[in-house]
C-alpha cells in the first residue's frame, strides 16, 4: 500500500504570505509537495465558503495564511478575516468537522522559513490524522448508491 499523501490547499494573501512563500523559494528551503497555493488579494477576501468547498472537493487539510495583525496591505482585511475565522472555527468544531485540519497562520513576506515550517508541520499533522474519510463519506454519498 502506498503511503497516504494528504491533499492540502493553501489560501494565502498576495502581499505577505504569497511573498513569504516566494522567499522560501528564493532561499531554497525545501518543503513537502502536498501543499498547493491559491493566491488572494487579501485574507479579507477568503470566503469561508471556499474552505467548505475545499473539503467538499476532497481536501484533507487547508492552510489559510496572511499578513500579521497590523501589517495588512489593506490595513484591516486580516482583522476581518480573523473574526470570521474565529466564528467559522467555532461552528465547524460544534459540527464535528475536525478543526485540526485547518491551519491558520500569519506569515509575512520576510518569513520564508516560517512558511516552510507551516507547510511541513501541517502536512505532518494531516498525515497523522489520515485521510478525511468521514467527510469523504459524506461528500461521496452519490458515488455509493443512495440508500433511499
Amino acid at each position, binding site marked *: 500500500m502506498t503511503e497516504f*499523501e494528504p*491533499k492540502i*490547499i493553501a489560501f494565502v494573501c*498576495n502581499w505577505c504570505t*504569497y*511573498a513569504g*512563500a*516566494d*522567499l*522560501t*523559494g*528564493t532561499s*531554497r*528551503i*525545501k*518543503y513537502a*509537495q502536498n501543499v*498547493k*497555493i*491559491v*493566491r*488572494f*488579494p*487579501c485574507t*479579507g*477576501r*477568503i*470566503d*469561508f465558503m*471556499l474552505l467548505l*468547498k*475545499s473539503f467538499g*472537493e*476532497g*481536501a484533507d487539510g487547508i492552510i489559510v495564511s496572511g499578513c500579521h495583525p*497590523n501589517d495588512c*496591505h*489593506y*490595513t*484591516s*482585511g486580516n482583522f*476581518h*478575516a480573523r473574526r*470570521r475565522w474565529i466564528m467559522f472555527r467555532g461552528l465547524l468544531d460544534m459540527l464535528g468537522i475536525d478543526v485540526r485540519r485547518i491551519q491558520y497562520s500569519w506569515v509575512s513576506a520576510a518569513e520564508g522559513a516560517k512558511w*516552510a515550517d507551516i507547510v511541513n508541520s501541517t502536512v505532518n499533522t494531516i498525515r497523522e490524522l489520515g485521510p478525511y474519510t468521514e467527510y469523504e463519506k459524506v461528500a461521496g454519498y452519490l458515488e455509493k448508491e443512495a440508500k433511499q
Partner: protein
Amino acid sequence: MSKIGVFICHCGENINATVDCARVAKTAGELEGVEYSIDYKYMCSDPGQTLIKQAIKEKGLTGVVVGSCSPRMHEPTFRKACQEAGLNPFMCEMANLREHCSWVHDKNEATTQKAIDLVRTLVEKVKLNKPLYSIKVPVTKTALVIGGGIAGIQASLDIANAGHQVILVEKDPSIGGHMSQLSETFPTLDCSQCILTPRMVEVAQHPNIKLLTYAELEKLEGSIGNFKATIRKKAKSIDENLCNGCGTCTTKCPTKKIPSEFNTGLGTRTAIYVPFPQAVPNKPVIDKENCSYYQKGKCKVCEKVCPTGAIRFDQEDELVEIEVGAVVIATGFNIMQPSEFPEYGYGKYKDVITGLQFERLASASGPTLGEIRRPSDGKIPEKIVFVACAGSRDPAKGIPYCSKICCMYTAKHAMLYQHKVHHGKSYIFYMDIRAAGKNYEEFVRRAIVDDEVNYIRGRVSKIYEENGKLIVRGVDTLLNAKPVEIEADMVVLASAAIANPGAEELAQKMHVSYDSYHFFSEAHPKLKPVETNTAGIFLAGACQAPKDIPETVSQASGAASKAIILFSKDELSRDPLIAVVNRSPAPVFSTCVGCFMCASACPYQAIGEELITNRQGKVIKKVAKVNPGLCQGCGTCVAFCRSKSIDIQGYSNEQMCAEVVALLNND
C-alpha cells in the same frame, strides 16, 4: 469557447532541474480548452515573449497561462506581452512553478505533478477571466488644507508653489497654530515667530492660496480627485473687505478682561480682538460669547469708533461649497490639562503652569515680554522645577504613549530660564531622556553641562504650597530611590500632547480612521505614513501623532507632494482589480439587498449607495455601489456579502471556486 495558451518556462535550469517541463506542457495541452502549449528555456526573454505573442495571433488565443516564476516577478512583463499581441493584459495568468515548486522541492514525480496541478488550476481560472480596463477618474486640481499651523502652512505653500490652487481653512481667527505661541525652538534656539511669521505672510499673499480663517469643515463628500467640501465660515461680525486692520476697535473695546487663548490665559484680550499682533489676517473678530452687545444688547463701541464702518453685528455663518481633488489634514494637537493630576496642584497653585504657558512667559511677545515671572506675584523665580511626562507614558491616569516633544522642550525651557535668570536653579524630573534627533542629544547635554540644569531621574509624587514655596516631593531613582524634596518658586509641567477635542468628529466627517487616542491613522505605519485609508486625503503634522517642528514640516511637504503627484495628471488611472456590485434583469435589478454590511467592512469607505429607479423616476431599491476611485481591491466586502452580490474583478467568486475545484480534482 476558450482557447488557452500554456507557456512553460524552464527558467534555464531553475525550473527544469526538478520539474519535467516538457511533460507539464504536454499534459497541459490535453486539458479541455487548451489550444496550444509549449515549453521554452526562457519565457521572459525576447524570443520567449515572441513565442507568446505569435501564438496569441496565430492560434487566436483567448487566454494565456505562463508557468514560470512568481507573478510578483514577471506578471507585468507577460501581461504587457499579451497586450502587445492584442490580448487584454488581464487575460494572462501565471502559475508559480519556480518559487512555489521547483526551488522548494526535489526532483521527482510529485514535483512535476504539483507543477501540472498548478498549471491546471490557473488554466481553469483564466477561462473565467474577463477583459479589464484601467479606471479613469478626472482630477480637480485644487487642494483643501485643513488647519493653518506650521503643517498646514507648509503643505499649502508647497502645493501652491507647484502651481495648484489651495484652500486653507483655519478654525481660529489667525493662522500660525501652536508654533506661533512658542518662544524659541530647539535645538537651535531660534525665535519661533521670526521663522514662522514670514511664512504666514507668504500664505496670505500667495496668489494660489485662498485663506479661510475662522472657518471649519462642515461636510466632505466625494472621493479622490473629486471631493466636495462644505466649509462653515463662522461670522466674524466684520466686513473683511472694509476693515483695514487699524486696531482702533480693539483698543476701545470696553470688555478687556477676557483670558487670552493665545497667551494661554496668562494675558487678557478684548471682546473684539486680533489673537496676537502678527496675526494673519490681521483683522479682528468679535467673540460673541464675551461681547456686551451680543450678550446684553448694548455697547456697539467698536461700531462707533470704526473709521471704515466695517462692523457687522448681523453677520451670519456662511456655508461655502468647494470642489477639491485632495485634502491635507493638518489640524494639529492639543495639550492635556494637568488638572487631571491633582497631586501636581495645577489650577490650585498659580505658579504651577504648563509647558505651553512657560513658552508664553519666555516669549518676547508674551505677557511678561519675555521675562520669566511668576503668574502669582510677578516675581522672578529663583528655583524652578520642571516635571517631564506630566501625563505622558502613564497608562493608569494619563496617556500610555510618549508625547515625544517634551524631553526636548523641557531641556529648552530650563536652558531659557538659565539664560534669563543666571543665578536661578532649575531641576528636571524625568523618566528617560528621549533626545533622538539631529543635534538633540547634544542640546540636552548642553543644558546639563553648560547651563547646569539638574536632571533628576524620578517621578514627582506631590506638589504643595508651604510658606509661599512650592514643595516638590519626588524620588531620585538613581540615588537608591532616595526621596527628594525641592522648595521651588515655580513648577512647569510638561503636559501630554493629545489629539484635538474635535478630531473624532472631523475624522468621521471625512471618513478617515483614527486610533484609540483619536489621532488620525495613516494608511500604513511604514510605507504610507502620510496617506490615510481614504485615497486622496493626506496627513500632516501632529494630528497624526505628536511630533516636533522639523518632523511636522517634513510630513507636510510629504503630504503636499502626494497631492502634487495626484495633480500631475488630468485623470487618475487605476488598476481595475476592484469590487463591483452585480446587476440583474428587472424586476430584481441587483441581488444586493442594501444591508450595507459591506460598507461597514470596507477599509476605504469605497462603498456608497445607489438608488435604482424605474422609468418614472420612482426609487425601487437602494443598493451598494463601489466607488472605483476609492476601492483598493482587497475583496473584504466580497467575502462578507451574504448574497454574493458584490464581486471582485480578477479574483472573482467564479474564478476562486474554479481554482479550488481544479486544484483538488486531478483527474
